[in-house]
């Protein structure tokens, strides 16, 4: 009897420790065994890494989402426990001769250092790994799902990928669990259903339930190993006063109240701010990377307005807006008297054209694109069977959109969507919208208009006198060219050529904070660094 009780207890402990997962490999790849993946999670002391290597600029992750309100009860934080890792590996019969191929795509030194640290932690529990930087077509190397999403084999050739998920809408964290989309994890039917559930409603309670269930499944089985949440750091010089307007996710569009900002005049009495993210060769279409370039938020207005957390809070170009009770019709009316920076009126026809063009543009932000492609008639337009979307109706200043199915992100998408002046794009193939010469000197609708664009030298913007929200108190914005990560940021800031902007580069943060005239404000954003583990059988 005692023996039976002991056996039962052992079984209960084991089941509880592996979280009820099917604690064995599901194919000939040992990484398909949840115990091995859990062992990897236990083997890494992320807390120490966050404090040391990342100098406190990383938050230890538990789930994919950083907000614990989306976690179910009993989420395992996989706190550092090398003994437990060794036990799990022993139970799983881990082949100690196997050398894991760990890949990453960030070319910075800190990532290479991080890989070296991970290598040491895994070695400590008896796992060998090599690491390498992916180059060339990274997308093809990390995102190709197998032809058979259940049995594989994998279409990728790595064991573990270190990467990130940055999201506008939280569904983006989970959408790859839809059937046939996941390159590294054999299909999970339960997840397919949950993905479909959260994408078919705008009900926040359903979203919460769905996220909780998905977080629970991922955590229990260690399908993906969330490592840390990265913050975004807004820098600001002491010449700038935002007049109390809050800081938010600078990678997207939100109401930052720039019209109310005050700037200390320079020696010539001019109120100038310097920033970065000016173009190097052309201005990017503002539908791709929604907020990162200087023209995105200074020169273009969106239909709706979002708060710093990207929650839609009202109209921007739209005076009024509303969603039907069934969630299938979205109507908005543009403000009266709106004009583009060239003085031409902003019309509902411009907006309708922009919606159709953005739906066809291959690089439109996926959340925005998904919303636009759910408008009735979008499929026919994309297939080339129709010239327009049947679900767009224009009446004066009012645009009515009819959706073929419920989209969870209509308001969010339109809080990020900036229409373009259609007249400049007559005859342009929507696939090649970016190749139009408009993008050498774009005409926008926002609080600032482009004054001079010297590609790869600078871009200057001046207040738009007819802006519906009032005229800004800043005489000129001088933007220096840079990509998303600006390698010259610290130098320019030290030389008083960077007054506002953001960075995600941790070493830059310390350097900026060391400058007397600069301050750095950390902002929580949906950005999670994680390990994807290839659980398919390998082709060789």
């Amino acid at each position, binding site marked *: 009897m005692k023996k039976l009780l002991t056996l039962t207890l052992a079984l209960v402990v084991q089941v509880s420790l592996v979280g009820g997962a099917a604690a064995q490999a599901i194919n000939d790849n040992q990484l398909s065994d949840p115990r091995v993946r859990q062992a990897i999670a236990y083997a890494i002391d992320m807390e120490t890494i966050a404090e040391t290597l990342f100098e406190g600029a990383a938050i230890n992750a538990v789930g994919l989402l950083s907000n614990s309100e989306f976690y179910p009860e009993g989420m395992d934080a996989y706190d550092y426990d090398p003994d437990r890792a060794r036990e799990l590996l022993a139970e799983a019969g881990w082949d100690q001769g196997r050398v894991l191929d760990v890949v990453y*795509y960030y070319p910075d030194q800190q990532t290479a250092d991080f890989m070296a640290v991970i290598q040491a932690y895994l070695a400590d529990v008896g796992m060998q790994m090599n690491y390498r930087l*992916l*180059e*060339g*077509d*990274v*997308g*093809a*190397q*990390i*995102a190709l799902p197998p032809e058979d999403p259940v049995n594989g084999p994998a279409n990728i050739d790595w064991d573990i990928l270190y*990467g*990130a*998920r*940055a999201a506008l809408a939280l569904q*983006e964290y989970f*959408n*790859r669990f839809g059937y046939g989309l996941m390159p590294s994890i054999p299909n999970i039917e339960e997840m397919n259903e949950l993905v479909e559930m959260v994408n078919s409603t705008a009900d926040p309670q359903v979203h919460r339930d769905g996220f909780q269930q998905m977080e629970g499944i991922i955590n229990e089985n260690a399908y993906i190993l969330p490592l840390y949440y990265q913050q975004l750091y807004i820098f600001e010089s002491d010449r700038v006063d935002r007049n109390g307007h809050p800081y938010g996710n600078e990678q997207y569009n939100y109401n930052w109240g720039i019209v109310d900002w005050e700037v200390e005049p320079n020696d010539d009495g001019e109120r100038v701010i310097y920033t970065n993210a000016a173009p*190097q*060769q*052309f201005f990017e279409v503002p539908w*791709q*990377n929604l907020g990162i370039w200087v023209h995105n938020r200074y020169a273009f207005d969106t239909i709706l307005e979002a708060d710093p957390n990207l929650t839609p809070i009202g109209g921007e170009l739209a005076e009024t807006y509303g969603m039907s009770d069934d969630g299938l019709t979205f109507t908005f009316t543009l403000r009266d008297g709106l004009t583009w920076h060239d003085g031409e009126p902003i019309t509902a026809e411009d907006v309708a054209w922009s919606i159709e063009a953005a739906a*066809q*543009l*291959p*690089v439109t932000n*996926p*959340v925005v*694109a998904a919303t636009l492609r759910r408008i009735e008639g979008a499929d026919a337009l*994309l297939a080339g069977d129709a010239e327009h979307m049947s679900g767009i109706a224009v009446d004066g200043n009012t645009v009515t959109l009819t959706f073929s199915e419920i989209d969870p992100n209509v308001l969010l998408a339109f809080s990020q969507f900036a229409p373009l002046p259609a007249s400049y794009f007559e005859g342009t*193939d929507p*696939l*090649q919208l*970016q*190749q*139009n*010469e408009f*993008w*050498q000197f774009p005409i926008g609708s926002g609080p600032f208009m482009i004054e*001079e664009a*010297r*590609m*790869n*030298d*600078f871009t*200057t913007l001046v207040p738009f006198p007819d802006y519906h929200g009032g005229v800004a108190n800043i005489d*000129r914005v*001088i933007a*220096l*060219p840079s990509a*998303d990560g600006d390698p*010259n940021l610290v*130098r*320019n800031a*030290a*030389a008083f*050529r960077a007054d506002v902007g953001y960075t995600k580069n941790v070493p830059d943060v310390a350097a900026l904070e060391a400058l007397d005239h600069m301050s750095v404000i950390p902002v929580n954003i949906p950005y999670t660094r994680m390990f994807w583990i290839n659980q398919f059988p390998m082709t060789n």
Partner: protein
Amino acid sequence: MPTYIIRRLLTLVPMAIVISFLVYLGLELTPGDAVSHMIPPDGIGSMDPERLQMLRESLGLGQPFLVRYWIWLTGVVQGEFGYSLSGGVPIAQIFLTRLPATLELSIAALVISSIAGSILGTISALTRGSKTDQALTTVGMLGVSIPEFFIGLVAILIFSLNLQWLPVGGRLMPGDDSFWDRIPNLVMPALVLSIMMTAGVMRYARSSMLDALSKDFVRTARSKGMPEWRVNLLHGFRVALTPVIVLIGFRLPVLIGGTVVIEQVFQWPGIGNEFIASVRAQDYPLVMMIALFSVIAVLLASLIVDILTAVIDPRVRLGD
């Protein structure tokens, strides 16, 4: 000489074609294409692969390699340089905006290094074995040995950030309309770029001068009672200049592609910076044109150097 020049010019054509093909092949063998580089890896998982494939097709990336190369080559022959894939900007326009920046920087560095290197090398040769010679040789070694990016960063730290004498980088700021407005921006990158070249020219000029001074005609000139400065300048320096000119002549085209590091360090918007960006973006029409331009520049420079050598040194006969 005209026959020689025409023959050399004609040989440029097959060489340029072969080299351009090799560059094109290199791009083809690199994983990925311009479209895959438009999407950051963090976002690639959320994109619609079918739409991306349509974009590839619309940009002509779906055609076979040889077809694409042929289209590009025939276009170039007809003077159609094409458009940048990433932004649709005409390549001619990119050249018109970037090349002046690189030429400005390269020529400034070339002038500084040629004058300084020739003078210092000559002084070093004339004071052979002295402390001046030793000091110049040591400085020359250091100039060749220390990487440009390091000197550039130190220079920025001292002259821009600490002393605030010179701008931290860039070529133009709002209101900088004339060349003279740009001089403060040009000083530091041009000087840093010229350091390594000065050291090279100096060492070359020194050994060339020493070689010339040991020739019989120099001894003859001295034995005729000619003043020492005249012997050195008219006989020694003139002859010693020939190989130095060859070196300098070859430097200009190399500089056009070789300013990449300095352009990066000083945020200089030149063709080198553009080349790096276009290679990263796999923007093949732009990469090809910059590569082709560099190849033609080197080949033409080689021809010009040959002609100049013949003009300076009467012993050299072209086409023999």
